[in-house]
């Protein structure tokens, strides 16, 4: 195995020092002289037409600088999702920044910019809006039914998207089955709960060019969407990449309302405008879509799948936005491709309702799919008395199989079996007791779930940005600056990209700095999403560092009178391989390359012959070569109180084929944090809305409970399997999303093992447990 200098070491995170001493660089801290503050007026009604808006009183309030109403906002429908083109043919373009047509309670209908946030808030109360109320529908299946209120002209039956994928012969497959299982699995609407609110500052230059600071997950996506929404060329917008943001998890993967509104208000006033959402507004800006999955599966006696029919109904809310893609990813990567079944049909609907818009959330459709499929897989094993681990292995892929989703690619590294066996052994799965065999009120159970196919990016879809780019620039003090648009949401991109450059240039990590970047100067990089950053952005940064190293060695060859091919880097020095005496400081070579056009030789100044004079820098702009699948299996032990219905997770073991472990502590952090979100999803989190008015009722952390340190299990163990993925940086592939795809199904299966209660709709609340146990 190759020896690495920095890769694989848990180096201190380069951003940690700043974060423990105050955290200067969050977008929420951006402040400009003369800055105004914007607030949005939101509709209290879920479906209405605006008849009139009177802003005269608001405008008269001292300190109010501008008011914005729908008629002043360009009506340019688009998809605000960052990872596809605004007019992507696979997405639905139905999002407009402001409209007189209201489709959900919370939709912005006017905005104010004022000297202080308080004045802006006060002014909102002075705006008089007259609405004509329209009939509403909140349930997607009701919305699909005949006679339901229609939300969009372009979508009869409220169908935002309908897709069908088939393989094999379904009828034949069911005919071959010895047993057929059917179930309906329902998931709920949850929020990513990033801790830093969505915020932006937009400054319009005298010529109308915009500079934008925002807490988004993608600088280039925001540039594209914002320019399009305003009807201006992209080059008229410069988006500054935040050095880091306070969490995202997919919840900051689309342009919200605040960026275009702040931009318009800045243009109107000539002043920088800041907009920060309240927690309540954040809740209704983005959420994971609820999906109802109808699952019918045919199996042979030995557990081999013969047929599967899946129907998925996604509640898109008032606008399709992410919903038109989540439904696809859910269908293909959440249910169809992970399992080996010759005859399958998946049918998916994304349906308009008068609910809030959905968004991206770590796993992007797969947690909903995994919950359904892995719950049913467990039911099948239980009913047929099959070994659940052998059952999974029988119906999944093997290393070396053709990639089921991406033509011409192979599953080069694929260690699901190791994940399952090592995880099972660590938790003691062999000694697991039969379901519901415990005594007393507190019953323990063990369950697991796996997801046998996922992504390290998005290669394979025609429409999704996947390119990455980076610049690596060497300084005369033997340090490197890295310009990349890749945003660190907290998952550790700053750390990993630093490690990669340090490794390639054989520098200490402290000598590598991820520097300022904006869309004016950085090469395009796809968003931090789809578990792609380490793999795709990592490969680009590695290529840029290698390009810089090549130029450095060429310059060194010239300075040292050696063939660059014979030179190596070591500890900040350049030397001829195997000849430590020849070593020259890297700093000297870089300085020589940057020196004026003469060199000082023994006979005085002589013209240089160095061809590439000046700053040594490397550049890479590239597509990722493949999309290796990570795999993971999670085992949990729970304790269920059969008197109160409360479920407590005691222990978690998560095994994951990560390709190569670049930073153990960071990787463990992904597993631990992913489980926390997964446990919240499984047991407690749910956004609740008023059935009549559609108003959100769980808009703060007192009503929307997420796991605290007390509810979390005391033990979360991570097992990393290093399969050395040939296409990845140093053999690495992805990790983050899988950690949140599997927990809900694992917990549901463990609850079943403990109590015999099979709960098919999330979250598994005490009430549902008691009901399932016949105690309510």
């Amino acid at each position: 195995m190759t020896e690495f200098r920095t890769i694989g070491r848990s180096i201190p995170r380069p951003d940690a020092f700043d974060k423990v001493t105050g955290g200067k660089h969050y977008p929420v801290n951006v402040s400009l002289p003369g800055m105004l503050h914007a607030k949005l007026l939101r509709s209290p009604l879920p479906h209405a037409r605006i008849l009139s808006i009177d802003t005269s009183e608001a405008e008269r309030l001292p300190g109010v600088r501008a008011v914005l109403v729908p008629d002043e906002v360009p009506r340019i429908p688009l998809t605000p999702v960052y990872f596809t083109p605004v007019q992507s043919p696979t997405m639905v373009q139905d999002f407009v920044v402001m409209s007189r047509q209201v489709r959900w309670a919370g939709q912005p209908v006017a905005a104010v910019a004022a000297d202080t946030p308080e004045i802006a808030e006060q002014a909102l109360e002075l705006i008089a809006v007259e609405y004509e109320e329209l009939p509403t529908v909140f349930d997607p299946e009701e919305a699909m039914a005949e006679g339901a209120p229609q939300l969009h002209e372009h979508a009869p039956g409220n169908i935002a998207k309908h897709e069908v994928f088939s393989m094999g012969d379904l009828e034949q497959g069911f005919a071959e089955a010895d047993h057929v299982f059917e179930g309906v699995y329902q998931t709920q609407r949850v929020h990513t709960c990033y801790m830093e609110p969505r915020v932006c500052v937009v400054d319009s230059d005298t010529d109308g060019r915009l500079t934008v600071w925002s807490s988004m997950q993608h600088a280039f996506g925001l540039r594209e969407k914002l320019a399009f929404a305003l009807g201006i060329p992209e080059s008229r917008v410069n988006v500054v990449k935040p050095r880091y943001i306070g969490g995202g998890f997919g919840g900051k993967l689309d342009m919200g309302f605040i960026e275009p509104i702040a931009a318009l208000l800045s243009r109107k006033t000539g002043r920088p405008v800041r907009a920060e959402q309240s927690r309540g507004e954040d809740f209704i800006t983005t959420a994971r879509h609820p999906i109802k999955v109808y699952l019918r599966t045919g199996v042979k006696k030995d557990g081999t799948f013969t047929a599967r029919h899946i129907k998925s109904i996604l509640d898109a809310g008032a606008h399709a936005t992410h919903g038109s893609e989540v439904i696809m990813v859910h269908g293909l990567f959440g249910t169809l491709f992970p399992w080996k079944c010759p005859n399958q049909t998946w049918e998916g609907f994304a349906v308009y309702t008068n609910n809030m818009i959905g968004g991206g959330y770590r796993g992007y459709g797969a947690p909903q799919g995994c919950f359904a499929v892995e719950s049913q897989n467990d039911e099948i094993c239980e009913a047929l008395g099959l070994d659940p681990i052998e059952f999974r292995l029988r119906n999944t892929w093997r290393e070396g199989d053709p990639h089921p989703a991406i033509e011409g690619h192979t599953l080069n590294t694929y260690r699901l079996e190791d994940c399952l066996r090592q995880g099972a052994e660590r938790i003691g799965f062999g000694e697991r007791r039969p379901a519901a065999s415990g005594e007393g009120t507190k019953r323990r159970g063990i369950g697991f779930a796996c997801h046998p196919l996922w992504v390290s990016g998005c290669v394979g879809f025609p429409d999704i940005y996947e390119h990455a780019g980076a610049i690596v620039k060497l300084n005369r003090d033997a340090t490197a600056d890295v310009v990349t648009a890749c945003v660190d949401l907290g998952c550790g991109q700053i750390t990993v990209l630093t490690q990669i450059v340090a490794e390639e240039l054989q520098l200490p990590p402290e000598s590598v700095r991820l520097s300022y970047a904006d869309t004016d100067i950085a090469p395009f990089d796809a968003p931090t999403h789809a578990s792609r950053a380490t793999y795709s952005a990592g490969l680009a940064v590695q290529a840029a560092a290698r390009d810089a190293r090549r130029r450095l060695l060429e310059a060194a060859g010239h300075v040292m009178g050696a063939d660059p091919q014979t030179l190596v880097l070591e500890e900040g020095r350049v030397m001829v391989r195997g000849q430590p005496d020849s070593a020259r400081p890297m700093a000297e070579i870089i300085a020589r390359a940057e020196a004026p056009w003469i060199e000082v030789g023994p006979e005085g100044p002589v013209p240089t012959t160095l061809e590439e004079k000046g700053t040594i820098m490397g550049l890479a702009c590239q597509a990722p070569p493949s999309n290796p699948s990570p795999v993971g299996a999670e085992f949990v032990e729970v304790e269920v109180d059969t008197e109160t219905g409360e479920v407590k997770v005691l222990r978690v073991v998560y095994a994951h084929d990560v390709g190569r472990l670049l930073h153990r502590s960071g990787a463990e952090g992904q597993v631990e944090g992913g489980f926390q979100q997964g446990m919240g999803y499984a047991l407690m989190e749910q956004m609740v809305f008023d059935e009549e008015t559609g108003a959100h009722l769980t808009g703060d952390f007192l009503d929307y409970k997420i796991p605290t340190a007390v509810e979390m299990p005391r033990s979360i163990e991570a097992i990393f399997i290093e399969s050395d993925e040939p296409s990845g940086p140093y053999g690495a592939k992805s990790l983050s999303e899988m950690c949140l795809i599997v927990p809900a199904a694992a917990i549901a299966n463990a609850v079943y093992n403990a109590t015999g209660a099979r709960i098919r709709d999330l979250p598994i609340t005490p009430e549902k447990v008691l009901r399932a146990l016949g105690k309510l």
Partner: protein
Amino acid sequence: MKQLIELEINGQRQELLVEPHTSLLQCLREQAFLKGAKRGCDSGGCGCCTVLVDGRAVYSCMTLVMSVEGRSITTVEGLSGEGALDPVQQAFIDAGAVQCGYCTCGMMMAARQLLDDNPDPSEEEIRKGIAGNLCRCTGYAKIVEAIRLAASRRQGHSVGEAG
């Protein structure tokens, strides 16, 4: 009506002109320009805004600045003295307890009060001690580890001094 009040922030006396409804969080961030305390919810639900008032951890978003007139406020900026990090800060770095970091400053203030009250807390005591502070990234495992590490280092430190 604005009113002039005096606070001691991180050991320095400061006069500030505040409104009756101004929260301590607002005042720290916008008037004292200390950005360590963060707003995560503004409603007492997340703990990102935690600071110490006379050594006690409070949600600064739920504290009217008028109500702490004349008292001594410690923010994360006041934790590290003379270039050296507080053991809690150092432990958060060393244990890998920082991801996005947005909860970190509030979390460390809660940890500081916990350790001041109870220099050798058990795991359960640590978990209870930070139950009012949400983190969405880490699952708390490394935060608990960091606080344990800080506790042992602080004890080692005072034993060393006594010896």
